[in-house]
Protein backbone atom coordinates (compact mmCIF):
# COMPACT_ATOMS: atom_id res chain seq x y z
CA UNK A 1 0.00 0.00 0.00
CA UNK A 2 1.45 3.36 -0.98
CA UNK A 3 2.24 6.04 1.63
CA UNK A 4 -0.39 8.35 0.08
CA UNK A 5 -3.11 5.79 0.65
CA UNK A 6 -2.00 5.05 4.24
CA UNK A 7 -2.09 8.81 5.04
CA UNK A 8 -5.52 8.98 3.48
CA UNK A 9 -6.90 6.12 5.52
CA UNK A 10 -5.58 7.66 8.76
CA UNK A 11 -7.15 10.97 7.80
CA UNK A 12 -10.55 9.52 6.90
CA UNK A 13 -10.52 7.41 10.08
CA UNK A 14 -9.81 10.52 12.16
CA UNK A 15 -12.67 12.45 10.56
CA UNK A 16 -15.10 9.59 11.05
CA UNK A 17 -13.98 9.29 14.67
CA UNK A 18 -14.87 12.94 15.25
CA UNK A 19 -18.16 12.41 13.41
CA UNK A 20 -19.04 9.41 15.59
CA UNK A 21 -18.06 11.14 18.84
CA UNK A 22 -20.45 14.01 18.16
CA UNK A 23 -23.12 11.69 16.79
CA UNK A 24 -23.38 10.29 20.31
CA UNK A 25 -23.89 13.79 21.65
CA UNK A 26 -26.67 14.89 19.29
CA UNK A 27 -29.94 14.92 21.15
CA UNK A 28 -32.25 17.20 19.18
CA UNK A 29 -32.56 18.71 15.72
CA UNK A 30 -31.34 22.03 17.10
CA UNK A 31 -28.20 20.18 18.25
CA UNK A 32 -27.93 18.47 14.88
CA UNK A 33 -28.33 21.63 12.81
CA UNK A 34 -26.97 24.42 14.97
CA UNK A 35 -24.83 22.72 17.62
CA UNK A 36 -27.21 24.37 20.11
CA UNK A 37 -25.56 27.75 19.32
CA UNK A 38 -22.53 26.91 21.40
CA UNK A 39 -19.58 27.33 19.04
CA UNK A 40 -16.57 29.50 19.85
CA UNK A 41 -15.49 32.24 17.39
CA UNK A 42 -12.48 30.36 16.00
CA UNK A 43 -14.42 27.18 15.23
CA UNK A 44 -17.16 29.30 13.69
CA UNK A 45 -14.66 31.22 11.53
CA UNK A 46 -12.71 28.27 10.19
CA UNK A 47 -15.72 26.02 9.76
CA UNK A 48 -17.56 28.78 7.86
CA UNK A 49 -14.59 29.23 5.56
CA UNK A 50 -14.01 25.50 5.09
CA UNK A 51 -17.70 25.01 4.29
CA UNK A 52 -17.49 27.89 1.86
CA UNK A 53 -14.34 26.80 0.05
CA UNK A 54 -14.87 23.46 -1.63
CA UNK A 55 -12.78 21.43 -4.05
CA UNK A 56 -13.14 24.65 -6.01
CA UNK A 57 -10.30 26.21 -3.94
CA UNK A 58 -7.76 23.48 -4.66
CA UNK A 59 -8.96 22.39 -8.09
CA UNK A 60 -11.34 24.76 -9.90
CA UNK A 61 -9.67 28.05 -8.98
CA UNK A 62 -5.97 27.05 -9.41
CA UNK A 63 -7.11 25.40 -12.68
CA UNK A 64 -8.59 28.70 -13.89
CA UNK A 65 -5.36 30.54 -12.99
CA UNK A 66 -3.28 27.82 -14.65
CA UNK A 67 -5.28 28.23 -17.86
CA UNK A 68 -5.71 32.02 -17.83
CA UNK A 69 -2.92 33.49 -15.68
CA UNK A 70 -3.37 36.35 -13.21
CA UNK A 71 -6.52 37.45 -15.01
CA UNK A 72 -8.43 34.77 -13.09
CA UNK A 73 -7.46 36.31 -9.74
CA UNK A 74 -10.42 38.70 -10.02
CA UNK A 75 -12.74 35.88 -8.92
CA UNK A 76 -10.65 35.62 -5.76
CA UNK A 77 -10.78 39.39 -5.18
CA UNK A 78 -14.58 39.35 -5.56
CA UNK A 79 -14.88 36.45 -3.14
CA UNK A 80 -12.55 37.98 -0.54
CA UNK A 81 -14.50 41.25 -0.57
CA UNK A 82 -17.80 39.31 -0.46
CA UNK A 83 -16.57 37.35 2.57
CA UNK A 84 -15.67 40.57 4.37
CA UNK A 85 -19.00 42.26 3.60
CA UNK A 86 -21.01 39.18 4.61
CA UNK A 87 -19.35 39.00 8.04
CA UNK A 88 -19.50 42.77 8.40
CA UNK A 89 -23.15 43.34 7.59
CA UNK A 90 -25.04 40.06 7.72
CA UNK A 91 -23.33 38.00 10.46
CA UNK A 92 -24.22 39.82 13.66
CA UNK A 93 -27.69 40.88 12.63
CA UNK A 94 -28.69 37.45 11.36
CA UNK A 95 -27.37 35.80 14.56
CA UNK A 96 -29.47 38.14 16.72
CA UNK A 97 -32.57 38.08 14.55
CA UNK A 98 -32.68 34.28 14.40
CA UNK A 99 -32.42 34.11 18.18
CA UNK A 100 -35.18 36.71 18.66
CA UNK A 101 -37.60 34.77 16.47
CA UNK A 102 -36.17 31.33 17.35
CA UNK A 103 -35.28 30.20 13.83
CA UNK A 104 -32.87 27.34 13.10
CA UNK A 105 -32.82 27.24 9.30
CA UNK A 106 -32.95 29.91 6.58
CA UNK A 107 -36.49 28.88 5.58
CA UNK A 108 -37.47 29.03 9.24
CA UNK A 109 -36.02 32.54 9.38
CA UNK A 110 -38.04 33.76 6.39
CA UNK A 111 -41.24 32.21 7.69
CA UNK A 112 -40.94 33.63 11.19
CA UNK A 113 -39.55 37.00 10.04
CA UNK A 114 -42.64 37.57 7.90
CA UNK A 115 -45.16 35.66 10.08
CA UNK A 116 -46.10 33.56 7.07
CA UNK A 117 -48.77 31.12 8.15
CA UNK A 118 -49.38 29.88 4.62
CA UNK A 119 -46.03 28.01 4.62
CA UNK A 120 -45.47 29.09 1.00
CA UNK A 121 -42.22 30.91 1.83
CA UNK A 122 -40.91 27.86 3.67
CA UNK A 123 -41.75 25.49 0.83
CA UNK A 124 -40.29 27.71 -1.90
CA UNK A 125 -37.09 28.24 0.10
CA UNK A 126 -36.77 24.51 0.72
CA UNK A 127 -37.27 23.71 -2.96
CA UNK A 128 -34.70 26.28 -4.16
CA UNK A 129 -32.20 24.89 -1.65
CA UNK A 130 -32.81 21.35 -2.83
CA UNK A 131 -32.42 22.17 -6.54
CA UNK A 132 -29.23 24.23 -6.32
CA UNK A 133 -27.57 22.25 -3.55
CA UNK A 134 -28.03 19.03 -5.49
CA UNK A 135 -26.08 20.69 -8.32
CA UNK A 136 -23.51 21.97 -5.81
CA UNK A 137 -23.13 18.55 -4.19
CA UNK A 138 -22.49 17.04 -7.61
CA UNK A 139 -19.54 19.45 -8.08
CA UNK A 140 -18.01 18.01 -4.91
CA UNK A 141 -18.46 14.50 -6.22
CA UNK A 142 -16.82 15.48 -9.53
CA UNK A 143 -13.87 16.91 -7.55
CA UNK A 144 -13.74 13.73 -5.43
CA UNK A 145 -13.85 11.65 -8.61
CA UNK A 146 -10.88 13.54 -10.07
CA UNK A 147 -8.98 13.20 -6.81
CA UNK A 148 -9.45 9.45 -6.40
CA UNK A 149 -8.91 8.88 -10.11
CA UNK A 150 -5.44 10.44 -9.77
CA UNK A 151 -4.64 8.96 -6.38
CA UNK A 152 -5.73 5.37 -6.88
CA UNK A 153 -5.28 5.17 -10.65
CA UNK A 154 -8.82 3.99 -11.03
CA UNK A 155 -11.58 4.74 -13.47
CA UNK A 156 -13.38 8.08 -12.95
CA UNK A 157 -16.78 6.39 -12.47
CA UNK A 158 -15.52 4.11 -9.71
CA UNK A 159 -13.71 7.08 -8.17
CA UNK A 160 -17.00 9.02 -7.97
CA UNK A 161 -18.76 6.08 -6.26
CA UNK A 162 -15.87 5.92 -3.82
CA UNK A 163 -16.26 9.57 -2.81
CA UNK A 164 -20.04 9.09 -2.44
CA UNK A 165 -19.50 6.34 0.14
CA UNK A 166 -16.94 8.30 2.17
CA UNK A 167 -18.81 11.62 2.23
CA UNK A 168 -22.24 10.03 2.77
CA UNK A 169 -21.11 7.88 5.67
CA UNK A 170 -19.59 10.53 7.77
CA UNK A 171 -22.25 13.17 7.21
CA UNK A 172 -24.99 10.74 8.19
CA UNK A 173 -23.01 9.82 11.30
CA UNK A 174 -22.27 13.41 12.29
CA UNK A 175 -24.52 16.42 12.31
CA UNK A 176 -23.76 20.07 12.81
CA UNK A 177 -21.39 19.80 15.78
CA UNK A 178 -19.46 17.06 14.04
CA UNK A 179 -19.49 18.99 10.79
CA UNK A 180 -18.36 22.19 12.50
CA UNK A 181 -15.50 20.47 14.30
CA UNK A 182 -14.35 18.40 11.34
CA UNK A 183 -14.62 21.52 9.17
CA UNK A 184 -12.44 23.37 11.66
CA UNK A 185 -9.72 20.72 11.38
CA UNK A 186 -10.14 20.56 7.60
CA UNK A 187 -9.99 24.35 7.26
CA UNK A 188 -6.65 24.29 9.09
CA UNK A 189 -5.29 21.58 6.81
CA UNK A 190 -6.34 23.41 3.62
CA UNK A 191 -4.72 26.61 4.89
CA UNK A 192 -1.40 24.89 5.64
CA UNK A 193 -1.39 23.14 2.26
CA UNK A 194 -2.02 26.42 0.41
CA UNK A 195 0.88 28.10 2.18
CA UNK A 196 3.46 25.31 2.11
CA UNK A 197 2.92 23.94 -1.40
CA UNK A 198 3.42 27.18 -3.38
CA UNK A 199 6.25 28.39 -1.13
CA UNK A 200 8.12 25.10 -1.49
CA UNK A 201 7.69 25.05 -5.26
CA UNK A 202 8.73 28.70 -5.65
CA UNK A 203 11.80 28.22 -3.43
CA UNK A 204 12.85 25.13 -5.40
CA UNK A 205 12.45 27.10 -8.59
CA UNK A 206 14.87 29.80 -7.40
CA UNK A 207 12.47 32.43 -6.05
CA UNK A 208 9.67 34.64 -7.34
CA UNK A 209 11.82 36.45 -9.93
CA UNK A 210 12.68 33.14 -11.61
CA UNK A 211 9.03 32.07 -11.63
CA UNK A 212 7.92 35.36 -13.23
CA UNK A 213 10.71 35.09 -15.80
CA UNK A 214 9.72 31.54 -16.71
CA UNK A 215 5.99 32.38 -16.88
CA UNK A 216 6.74 35.41 -19.02
CA UNK A 217 8.70 33.24 -21.45
CA UNK A 218 5.57 31.10 -21.89
CA UNK A 219 3.39 34.20 -22.46
CA UNK A 220 4.04 37.58 -20.77
CA UNK A 221 0.29 38.33 -20.69
CA UNK A 222 -0.15 35.55 -18.10
CA UNK A 223 1.43 37.89 -15.55
CA UNK A 224 -0.91 40.79 -16.30
CA UNK A 225 -4.25 40.81 -14.46
CA UNK A 226 -5.69 43.09 -17.16
CA UNK A 227 -4.87 40.82 -20.11
CA UNK A 228 -6.78 37.81 -21.31
CA UNK A 229 -5.15 34.48 -22.16
CA UNK A 230 -6.76 31.26 -23.39
CA UNK A 231 -5.43 27.74 -22.97
CA UNK A 232 -5.62 25.01 -25.58
CA UNK A 233 -3.86 21.73 -24.86
CA UNK A 234 -4.11 20.63 -28.49
CA UNK A 235 -2.37 23.69 -29.97
CA UNK A 236 1.37 24.07 -30.67
CA UNK A 237 1.46 27.11 -28.38
CA UNK A 238 -0.91 26.34 -25.52
CA UNK A 239 -1.31 29.79 -23.93
CA UNK A 240 -2.48 32.34 -26.48
CA UNK A 241 -3.32 36.01 -25.79
CA UNK A 242 -6.85 37.11 -26.57
CA UNK A 243 -6.44 40.41 -28.40
CA UNK A 244 -8.97 42.58 -26.59
CA UNK A 245 -7.74 42.04 -23.01
CA UNK A 246 -10.09 41.89 -20.04
CA UNK A 247 -13.46 43.42 -20.94
CA UNK A 248 -15.79 45.28 -18.58
CA UNK A 249 -18.32 42.42 -18.74
CA UNK A 250 -15.50 39.96 -18.05
CA UNK A 251 -14.32 41.96 -15.04
CA UNK A 252 -17.74 42.37 -13.39
CA UNK A 253 -18.56 38.73 -14.09
CA UNK A 254 -15.45 37.64 -12.20
CA UNK A 255 -15.90 40.14 -9.35
CA UNK A 256 -19.62 39.30 -9.25
CA UNK A 257 -18.86 35.98 -7.56
CA UNK A 258 -18.65 37.98 -4.34
CA UNK A 259 -22.39 38.73 -4.47
CA UNK A 260 -23.13 35.05 -3.87
CA UNK A 261 -22.15 35.09 -0.20
CA UNK A 262 -25.26 36.84 1.08
CA UNK A 263 -27.39 33.93 -0.05
CA UNK A 264 -25.35 30.82 0.80
CA UNK A 265 -27.42 28.92 3.36
CA UNK A 266 -24.53 26.63 4.37
CA UNK A 267 -22.42 29.68 5.28
CA UNK A 268 -25.25 31.74 6.80
CA UNK A 269 -26.11 28.95 9.26
CA UNK A 270 -22.58 29.30 10.67
CA UNK A 271 -23.45 32.83 11.73
CA UNK A 272 -26.54 31.45 13.44
CA UNK A 273 -24.57 28.78 15.34
CA UNK A 274 -22.02 31.08 17.04
CA UNK A 275 -22.27 31.36 20.84
CA UNK A 276 -22.81 35.12 20.91
CA UNK A 277 -23.16 37.86 18.29
CA UNK A 278 -20.45 39.74 20.19
CA UNK A 279 -17.91 37.19 19.02
CA UNK A 280 -18.55 37.89 15.35
CA UNK A 281 -15.77 40.53 14.89
CA UNK A 282 -13.16 38.06 16.12
CA UNK A 283 -14.50 35.35 13.81
CA UNK A 284 -14.56 37.85 10.98
CA UNK A 285 -10.88 38.68 11.41
CA UNK A 286 -9.88 35.00 11.44
CA UNK A 287 -12.13 34.20 8.48
CA UNK A 288 -11.00 37.13 6.33
CA UNK A 289 -7.31 36.45 7.03
CA UNK A 290 -7.82 32.76 6.21
CA UNK A 291 -9.61 33.48 2.97
CA UNK A 292 -7.18 36.09 1.60
CA UNK A 293 -4.08 33.99 2.33
CA UNK A 294 -5.71 30.83 0.96
CA UNK A 295 -6.86 32.56 -2.23
CA UNK A 296 -3.42 34.06 -2.86
CA UNK A 297 -1.93 30.58 -2.23
CA UNK A 298 -4.35 29.08 -4.76
CA UNK A 299 -3.41 31.73 -7.35
CA UNK A 300 0.30 30.92 -6.87
CA UNK A 301 -0.41 27.17 -7.22
CA UNK A 302 -1.97 27.82 -10.64
CA UNK A 303 0.88 30.10 -11.72
CA UNK A 304 3.75 27.79 -10.71
CA UNK A 305 1.95 24.89 -12.40
CA UNK A 306 2.42 26.66 -15.76
CA UNK A 307 6.20 26.47 -15.52
CA UNK A 308 6.82 23.38 -13.43
CA UNK A 309 4.49 20.93 -15.18
CA UNK A 310 4.06 19.68 -18.70
CA UNK A 311 0.81 21.10 -20.20
CA UNK A 312 -2.11 19.38 -18.48
CA UNK A 313 -5.10 17.88 -20.29
CA UNK A 314 -7.23 18.73 -17.21
CA UNK A 315 -6.07 22.05 -15.78
CA UNK A 316 -8.08 21.45 -12.58
CA UNK A 317 -5.57 18.76 -11.61
CA UNK A 318 -2.71 21.27 -11.32
CA UNK A 319 -2.46 20.99 -7.50
CA UNK A 320 -2.57 17.17 -7.62
CA UNK A 321 0.11 17.04 -10.32
CA UNK A 322 2.39 19.43 -8.40
CA UNK A 323 2.18 17.20 -5.33
CA UNK A 324 2.90 14.12 -7.38
CA UNK A 325 5.90 15.68 -9.10
CA UNK A 326 7.61 17.58 -6.30
CA UNK A 327 6.84 16.04 -2.92
CA UNK A 328 7.70 12.77 -1.22
CA UNK A 329 4.74 10.35 -1.08
CA UNK A 330 4.20 10.85 2.68
CA UNK A 331 4.08 14.64 2.44
CA UNK A 332 2.04 14.44 -0.71
CA UNK A 333 -0.42 12.14 1.11
CA UNK A 334 -1.04 14.77 3.77
CA UNK A 335 -1.69 17.51 1.20
CA UNK A 336 -3.88 15.24 -0.90
CA UNK A 337 -5.89 14.75 2.26
CA UNK A 338 -6.27 18.55 2.25
CA UNK A 339 -8.01 18.28 -1.11
CA UNK A 340 -10.39 15.71 0.31
CA UNK A 341 -10.79 18.03 3.32
CA UNK A 342 -11.85 20.85 1.02
CA UNK A 343 -14.38 18.64 -0.72
CA UNK A 344 -15.81 17.00 2.37
CA UNK A 345 -15.99 20.14 4.49
CA UNK A 346 -18.24 21.78 1.91
CA UNK A 347 -20.30 18.83 0.83
CA UNK A 348 -21.12 17.78 4.41
CA UNK A 349 -22.36 21.27 5.30
CA UNK A 350 -24.43 21.40 2.12
CA UNK A 351 -25.92 17.98 2.72
CA UNK A 352 -26.82 19.06 6.21
CA UNK A 353 -28.57 22.21 5.00
CA UNK A 354 -30.37 20.35 2.21
CA UNK A 355 -31.47 17.60 4.56
CA UNK A 356 -32.73 20.21 7.02
CA UNK A 357 -34.63 21.82 4.12
CA UNK A 358 -36.29 18.52 3.42
CA UNK A 359 -36.91 17.47 7.03
CA UNK A 360 -37.66 20.79 8.76
CA UNK A 361 -39.02 22.83 5.87
CA UNK A 362 -40.86 20.41 3.61
CA UNK A 363 -41.63 17.27 5.62
CA UNK A 364 -43.18 19.19 8.51
CA UNK A 365 -45.62 20.82 6.09
CA UNK A 366 -47.27 17.44 5.71
CA UNK A 367 -46.60 16.12 9.20
CA UNK A 368 -46.86 19.03 11.57
CA UNK A 369 -46.62 16.85 14.68
CA UNK A 370 -43.53 14.86 13.67
CA UNK A 371 -41.32 14.17 16.70
CA UNK A 372 -37.61 15.00 17.03
CA UNK A 373 -36.54 11.39 16.46
CA UNK A 374 -38.63 11.05 13.32
CA UNK A 375 -37.18 14.30 11.91
CA UNK A 376 -33.64 13.14 12.63
CA UNK A 377 -34.25 9.97 10.62
CA UNK A 378 -35.96 11.85 7.79
CA UNK A 379 -33.00 14.22 7.53
CA UNK A 380 -30.52 11.34 7.48
CA UNK A 381 -32.56 9.66 4.74
CA UNK A 382 -32.60 12.98 2.86
CA UNK A 383 -28.78 13.09 2.88
CA UNK A 384 -28.72 9.76 1.09
CA UNK A 385 -31.34 10.77 -1.49
CA UNK A 386 -29.59 14.08 -2.31
CA UNK A 387 -26.19 12.47 -2.61
CA UNK A 388 -27.61 9.84 -4.98
CA UNK A 389 -29.18 12.48 -7.25
CA UNK A 390 -25.88 14.44 -7.12
CA UNK A 391 -24.16 11.20 -8.14
CA UNK A 392 -26.21 10.97 -11.33
CA UNK A 393 -25.05 14.47 -12.38
CA UNK A 394 -21.47 13.81 -11.27
CA UNK A 395 -21.11 10.67 -13.37
CA UNK A 396 -21.30 12.77 -16.54
CA UNK A 397 -18.12 14.60 -15.40
CA UNK A 398 -17.41 18.23 -16.31
CA UNK A 399 -15.53 21.11 -14.77
CA UNK A 400 -15.74 21.77 -11.03
CA UNK A 401 -15.57 25.51 -11.71
CA UNK A 402 -18.55 25.50 -14.08
CA UNK A 403 -20.81 23.40 -11.87
CA UNK A 404 -19.96 25.48 -8.78
CA UNK A 405 -20.60 28.73 -10.65
CA UNK A 406 -24.12 27.56 -11.60
CA UNK A 407 -25.11 26.55 -8.07
CA UNK A 408 -23.38 29.62 -6.61
CA UNK A 409 -25.36 31.95 -8.86
CA UNK A 410 -28.64 30.14 -8.14
CA UNK A 411 -28.33 30.31 -4.36
CA UNK A 412 -26.74 33.76 -4.26
CA UNK A 413 -29.34 35.42 -6.47
CA UNK A 414 -32.33 33.64 -4.88
CA UNK A 415 -31.52 34.27 -1.24
CA UNK A 416 -28.92 37.08 -1.17
CA UNK A 417 -31.25 40.01 -1.84
CA UNK A 418 -34.03 38.46 0.31
CA UNK A 419 -31.66 38.07 3.28
CA UNK A 420 -30.28 41.60 2.94
CA UNK A 421 -33.75 43.17 2.64
CA UNK A 422 -35.15 41.09 5.53
CA UNK A 423 -32.34 42.24 7.80
CA UNK A 424 -32.08 45.87 6.74
CA UNK A 425 -35.45 47.05 5.51
CA UNK A 426 -38.32 46.95 7.96
CA UNK A 427 -40.90 47.44 5.20
CA UNK A 428 -39.96 44.22 3.36
CA UNK A 429 -43.05 42.06 3.00
CA UNK A 430 -43.62 38.35 2.69
CA UNK A 431 -44.69 38.72 -0.94
CA UNK A 432 -41.66 40.90 -1.63
CA UNK A 433 -39.28 38.25 -0.27
CA UNK A 434 -41.11 35.53 -2.17
CA UNK A 435 -40.96 37.53 -5.41
CA UNK A 436 -37.22 38.10 -4.87
CA UNK A 437 -36.45 34.42 -4.26
CA UNK A 438 -38.43 33.23 -7.26
CA UNK A 439 -37.15 35.99 -9.59
CA UNK A 440 -33.51 35.40 -8.59
CA UNK A 441 -33.65 31.62 -9.00
CA UNK A 442 -35.68 31.71 -12.22
CA UNK A 443 -33.41 34.32 -13.84
CA UNK A 444 -30.36 32.12 -13.21
CA UNK A 445 -32.07 29.08 -14.74
CA UNK A 446 -33.30 31.06 -17.76
CA UNK A 447 -30.04 32.98 -18.32
CA UNK A 448 -28.00 29.79 -18.21
CA UNK A 449 -30.26 27.95 -20.66
CA UNK A 450 -31.15 30.63 -23.24
CA UNK A 451 -28.36 30.86 -25.81
CA UNK A 452 -28.65 34.60 -26.52
CA UNK A 453 -28.37 35.50 -22.84
CA UNK A 454 -25.62 33.01 -21.96
CA UNK A 455 -23.77 34.18 -25.09
CA UNK A 456 -23.32 37.69 -23.64
CA UNK A 457 -20.63 36.23 -21.37
CA UNK A 458 -22.16 38.02 -18.37
CA UNK A 459 -22.17 35.79 -15.25
CA UNK A 460 -25.85 35.07 -14.55
CA UNK A 461 -25.62 36.04 -10.88
CA UNK A 462 -25.42 39.74 -11.84
CA UNK A 463 -28.70 40.17 -13.76
CA UNK A 464 -30.44 37.70 -11.43
CA UNK A 465 -29.34 39.53 -8.29
CA UNK A 466 -30.36 42.90 -9.76
CA UNK A 467 -33.81 41.68 -10.83
CA UNK A 468 -34.35 40.04 -7.45
CA UNK A 469 -33.55 43.35 -5.70
CA UNK A 470 -36.05 45.18 -7.93
CA UNK A 471 -38.73 42.53 -7.36
CA UNK A 472 -38.40 42.71 -3.56
CA UNK A 473 -38.42 46.49 -3.55
CA UNK A 474 -41.43 47.06 -5.80
CA UNK A 475 -43.58 44.23 -4.45
CA UNK A 476 -42.86 45.26 -0.84
CA UNK A 477 -43.48 48.95 -1.57
CA UNK A 478 -46.90 48.06 -2.98
CA UNK A 479 -47.77 45.92 0.08
CA UNK A 480 -49.01 46.68 3.59
CA UNK A 481 -46.91 48.12 6.42
CA UNK A 482 -45.41 45.55 8.82
CA UNK A 483 -47.35 44.66 11.98
CA UNK A 484 -46.33 45.97 15.41
CA UNK A 485 -44.87 42.60 16.37
CA UNK A 486 -42.66 42.43 13.26
CA UNK A 487 -41.42 45.98 13.91
CA UNK A 488 -40.67 45.11 17.55
CA UNK A 489 -38.69 42.00 16.58
CA UNK A 490 -36.85 43.88 13.84
CA UNK A 491 -35.80 46.58 16.27
CA UNK A 492 -34.83 44.13 19.04
CA UNK A 493 -32.46 42.40 16.62
CA UNK A 494 -30.71 45.69 15.83
CA UNK A 495 -29.23 45.98 19.32
CA UNK A 496 -27.19 43.57 21.49
CA UNK A 497 -29.51 41.04 23.15
CA UNK A 498 -29.89 40.85 26.94
CA UNK A 499 -27.99 37.56 27.23
CA UNK A 500 -24.89 38.75 25.32
Amino acid at each position, binding site marked *: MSPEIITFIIYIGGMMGIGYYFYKQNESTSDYFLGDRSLNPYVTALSAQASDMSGWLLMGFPGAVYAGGFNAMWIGIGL*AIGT*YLNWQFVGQRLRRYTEVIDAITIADFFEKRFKDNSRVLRIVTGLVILVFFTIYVSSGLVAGGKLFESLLNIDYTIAVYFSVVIVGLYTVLGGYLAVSWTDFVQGGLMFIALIIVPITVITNFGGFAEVWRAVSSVNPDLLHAGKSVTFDIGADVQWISAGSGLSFIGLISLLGWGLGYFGMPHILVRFMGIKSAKQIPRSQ*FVAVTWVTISLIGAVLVGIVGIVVLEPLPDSEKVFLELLDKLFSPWVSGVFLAAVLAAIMSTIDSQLLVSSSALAEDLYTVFRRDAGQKELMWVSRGAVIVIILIGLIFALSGGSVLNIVSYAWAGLGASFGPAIIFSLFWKQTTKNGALAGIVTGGATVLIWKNVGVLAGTGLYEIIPAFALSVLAIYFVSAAGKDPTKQVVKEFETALKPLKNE
Partner: protein
Amino acid sequence: MKSSLPFFTTFWLLAPSLAIVILSLINVIKKETGDNE
Protein backbone atom coordinates in the same frame (compact mmCIF):
# COMPACT_ATOMS: atom_id res chain seq x y z
CA MET B 1 11.50 38.47 -20.22
CA LYS B 2 10.04 40.00 -17.10
CA SER B 3 11.47 39.12 -13.72
CA SER B 4 8.83 41.09 -11.80
CA LEU B 5 5.05 41.24 -11.74
CA PRO B 6 3.41 44.22 -13.47
CA PHE B 7 2.46 46.92 -10.94
CA PHE B 8 -1.21 46.56 -11.95
CA THR B 9 -1.23 42.88 -10.94
CA THR B 10 0.72 43.38 -7.71
CA PHE B 11 -1.50 46.26 -6.63
CA TRP B 12 -4.80 44.48 -7.21
CA LEU B 13 -3.53 41.22 -5.76
CA LEU B 14 -2.45 42.81 -2.50
CA ALA B 15 -4.39 46.05 -1.91
CA PRO B 16 -7.94 44.64 -1.52
CA SER B 17 -6.64 41.77 0.64
CA LEU B 18 -4.72 44.07 2.96
CA ALA B 19 -7.63 46.49 3.14
CA ILE B 20 -10.18 43.91 4.30
CA VAL B 21 -7.77 42.29 6.79
CA ILE B 22 -6.95 45.70 8.31
CA LEU B 23 -10.64 46.72 8.43
CA SER B 24 -11.48 43.44 10.21
CA LEU B 25 -8.66 43.99 12.67
CA ILE B 26 -9.98 47.48 13.40
CA ASN B 27 -13.38 45.91 14.14
CA VAL B 28 -11.82 43.55 16.68
CA ILE B 29 -9.85 46.33 18.36
CA LYS B 30 -12.93 48.57 18.51
CA LYS B 31 -14.98 45.73 20.01
CA GLU B 32 -12.34 44.77 22.60
CA THR B 33 -11.71 48.34 23.76
CA GLY B 34 -15.47 48.98 23.76
CA ASP B 35 -15.97 46.01 26.11
CA ASN B 36 -13.41 47.34 28.58
CA GLU B 37 -15.06 50.70 28.99
